[in-house]
């Protein structure tokens, strides 16, 4: 039983890949210029994907999936055989059906039965596309099962849609073996015996009378007549192994029709040219759904993607953890050896250096394992865009760039919600109505582009729409109305754009299903910040908006500056640090009883006593020995953190505090230093945010929110 469960898991894993293939194909179809001249390989690939899902689902008795995939497959086959011409409507239905199939698969993975009515209507949507009234094998099959569309009505046996004739059909099989058949240990009699299990078999042997005795090729060929109620694919299955070594022709004639209609001729040339012929998946004369299937499966094998290994994610995470420890242990070791100098001497330090670079390499390698391409994420987002566009009643073209960009798995997972928000906004608010667009002289169909790229050690993900841009007057008046900005505020354009990220902000006149509840963009902002990233918005009135997210490559390591604060060692993320200064007393200005500011390049920067933030030190006199670390928050505001000493600048492995303890205010995470001690990583955003809130309360300054 256990192995069955495992197989089931493998099936669902594979489903994901197949569904990805399907979506790939759909995207390719959508992008193709000329619908009448399609690359047949695209449709073949889609067909194979759906078919594999169907086959697998059938063997696990996942009837809903089987049924739906079958309907899908039938339409794809019509497309493939040229019975159906592709148009935009079909593509749209294909997309929604692919989405539904994804839903079905995830329901199946959780052992949940889908809503029968929905399944039925989705299947109908698909069948409605069918060009011919006689809907391939699909309809006849559904007719056969009296309770069509009832998920339980189909059994797992329908792995291949059979030419099921209730009265049974007669197949004529021509079988001519080559020498290799015998050389490979196949025995025709065995094959015939197996065939006879399917029905009534009549065997006729034909012997070549002009046969030369020194001829190496076998001189015997067979004509078989099989009356069976099994499908042709069952027969083909029997010939599966001997097929490369023999010439096999199968033709079927329905029992009461005398003229035989060839359904398939899988012909393989003898072993002299074994690699040459590959059954082409081109439409066969009869155009039956099932006939091309075996060949489709074979070419699927040949078109296998690059080799990958499936690994349990927990294992990878465990490995990453261990490598993290290795790095820590290595630095502990280095530190303790350098402390007791004199022992070992130069050779030891060389070895240590080698060891160090090795651990680094291992760490990088392991991190790379964890990295994943953003493609699945983008595909998921494509669905969001489609659905949003449908609800908003807009036509949207969705484009992606840099799908192969690799990002840490955790980052990808946590990007789903923010990206969903951003894309919904882009479609709902960003793009104008078709009427407005054509008025402005733009393409009626709006474009939303999602792109990913590596840029200087970070990943930049951008959502670009070619809509109307941020309506700044509306945004500003709405913000003033809501009391988020003082009435007298003088804001630059980019300041106004950033207002979109304020909590509680919304310009939508009415709350729609999609957006306008004033939650969203601020959630996006905070979620991205939690990932160590930043969000920026660039808008050009009339030509569109770009929302750009910049993220660290991984969440597992961080470049940090190790500082001393009131006898405690802390780490400040280097990405936020602008500069460090040893201030002159004249630069520091006392404002009010507690607040102090420093003039850095003619700009007043508030000073934050890091020790006071952590409530662990009496406020020190900073006139002489303090060091200020100038940091920049996600809004571009500068803050000066007062620390006692800067110790080091290094890469640290991030350790979660939450897993064993919980959230600590103003602390993002912990790390382990070279001496084995734990140091806390400062959560700059939380600190600066806190200061901003305090300031806006006291000064009501516009800078606090800008």
């Amino acid at each position, binding site marked *: 039983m256990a192995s069955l469960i495992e197989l089931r898991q493998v099936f669902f894993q594979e489903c994901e890949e197949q569904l990805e293939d399907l979506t790939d194909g759909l995207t390719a179809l959508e992008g193709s210029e000329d619908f009448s001249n399609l690359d047949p390989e695209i449709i073949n690939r889609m067909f194979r994907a759906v078919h594999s899902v169907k086959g697998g689902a059938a063997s696990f008795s996942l009837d809903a999936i089987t049924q739906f995939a079958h309907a899908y497959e039938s339409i794809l086959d019509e497309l493939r055989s040229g019975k159906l011409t592709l148009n935009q409507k079909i593509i749209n239905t294909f997309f929604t059906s692919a989405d539904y199939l994804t839903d079905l698969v995830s329901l199946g993975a959780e052992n949940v039965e889908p809503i029968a009515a929905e399944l039925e209507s989705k299947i109908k949507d698909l069948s409605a596309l069918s060009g011919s009234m006689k809907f391939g094998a699909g309809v006849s099959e559904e007719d056969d099962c009296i309770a069509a569309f009832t998920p339980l009505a189909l059994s797992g046996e329908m792995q291949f849609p059979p030419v099921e004739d209730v009265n049974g059909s007669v197949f004529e099989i021509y079988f001519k073996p080559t020498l290799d058949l015998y050389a490979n240990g196949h025995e025709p009699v065995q094959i015939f015996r197996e065939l006879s299990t399917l029905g009534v078999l009549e065997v006729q042997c034909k012997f070549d009378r002009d046969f030369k005795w020194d001829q190496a090729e076998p001189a015997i060929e067979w004509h078989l007549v099989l009356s069976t109620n099994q499908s042709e694919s069952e027969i083909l299955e029997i010939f599966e192994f001997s097929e490369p070594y023999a010439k096999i022709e199968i033709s079927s004639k329905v029992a009461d029709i005398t003229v035989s209609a060839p359904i398939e001729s899988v012909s393989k040339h003898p072993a002299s040219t074994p690699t040459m012929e590959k059954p082409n998946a081109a439409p066969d004369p009869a155009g039956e759904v099932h006939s091309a299937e075996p060949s489709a499966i074979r070419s699927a094998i040949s078109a296998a993607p690059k080799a990958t290994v499936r690994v349990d994610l927990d294992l990878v995470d465990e490995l990453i*953890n261990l490598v*993290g*420890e290795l790095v*820590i242990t290595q630095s502990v070791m280095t530190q303790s050896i350098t402390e007791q100098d004199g022992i070992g001497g130069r050779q030891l330090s060389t070895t240590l250096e080698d060891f160090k670079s090795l651990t680094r390499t291992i760490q990088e390698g392991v991190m790379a394992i964890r990295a994943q391409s953003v493609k699945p994420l983008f595909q998921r987002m494509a669905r969001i865009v489609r659905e949003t566009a449908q609800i908003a009643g807009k036509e949207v073209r969705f484009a992606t760039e840099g799908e192969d960009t690799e990002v840490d798995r955790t980052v990808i997972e946590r990007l789903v919600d923010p990206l969903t928000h951003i894309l919904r906004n882009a479609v709902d608010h960003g793009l104008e109505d078709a009427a407005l667009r054509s008025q402005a002289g733009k393409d009626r169909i709006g474009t939303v582009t999602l792109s990913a790229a590596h840029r200087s050690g970070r990943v930049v993900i951008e959502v670009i729409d070619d809509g109307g841009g941020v309506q700044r007057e509306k945004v500003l008046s709405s913000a003033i109305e809501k009391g988020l900005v003082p009435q007298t505020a003088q804001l630059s354009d980019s300041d106004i754009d950033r207002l979109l990220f304020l909590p509680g902000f919304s310009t939508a006149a009415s709350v729609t299903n999609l957006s306008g509840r004033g939650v969203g963009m601020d959630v996006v902002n905070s979620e991205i910040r939690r990932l160590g990233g930043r969000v920026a918005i660039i808008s050009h009135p009339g030509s569109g908006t770009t929302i750009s997210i910049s993220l660290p490559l991984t969440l597992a390591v961080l470049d940090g500056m190790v500082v001393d604060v009131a006898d*405690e*060692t802390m780490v400040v993320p280097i990405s936020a640090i602008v500069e460090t200064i040893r201030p002159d007393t004249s630069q520091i200005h006392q404002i009010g009883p507690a607040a102090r500011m420093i003039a850095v390049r003619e700009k007043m920067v508030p000073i934050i006593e890091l020790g006071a*933030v*952590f*409530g*662990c030190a009496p406020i020190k006199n900073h006139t002489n020995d303090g060091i200020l670390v100038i940091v920049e928050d996600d809004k571009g505001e500068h803050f000066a953190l007062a620390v006692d000493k800067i110790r080091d600048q290094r890469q640290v492995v991030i*350790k*979660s*505090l939450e*897993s*064993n*303890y*919980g959230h*600590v*205010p*103003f*602390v993002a995470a*912990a790390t*382990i230093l070279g001496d*084995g*001690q*734990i*140091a*806390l990583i400062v959560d700059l955003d939380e600190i600066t945010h806190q200061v901003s809130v305090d300031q806006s309360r006291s000064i009501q300054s516009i800078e606090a929110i800008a």
Partner: protein
Amino acid sequence: MKIEDDSSNSEKFELITFSIGSQDFCMDIILVREIRGWTNVTMLPHAPKDVLGVMNLRGAVVPIVDLSARLGLGVCESKERDVIIITLIEKKIVGFLVTAVSDIIELSQTDIQPMPQMGGKKENQFVKGIYISDNKTLRVLDIASLAASMTTAQESV
């Protein structure tokens, strides 16, 4: 050893006995991962005063709780000679600072008497029951609920 006991008499279970100052306690050994000496901890800002900080346990960041302060017996003074009982409670690793670990005893549920009502004092809030041996009175600590209360305590900070 333990497995045998489990099969012969499922009622029996093992407890680890330890002392805080001069008072004796015990707790279910199932939860105990290891016992180790005192190492320096890193202070956690804005933490309740019984949370001493976090320590590095082979790469894991483990919070250390002063059990004496947690139970309301006053803050533990000398730490150098004290020991830390590392426990695994609901997938969280938590260390408890105690004065000394003395023994492992085997008890059945019937050996443990319910705690007499002595008012809702903090120190008895987490005591499941009491066991009286020849010369000692051991209080059985409900360490899981103690650890759970730690989470709520720190959320309210």
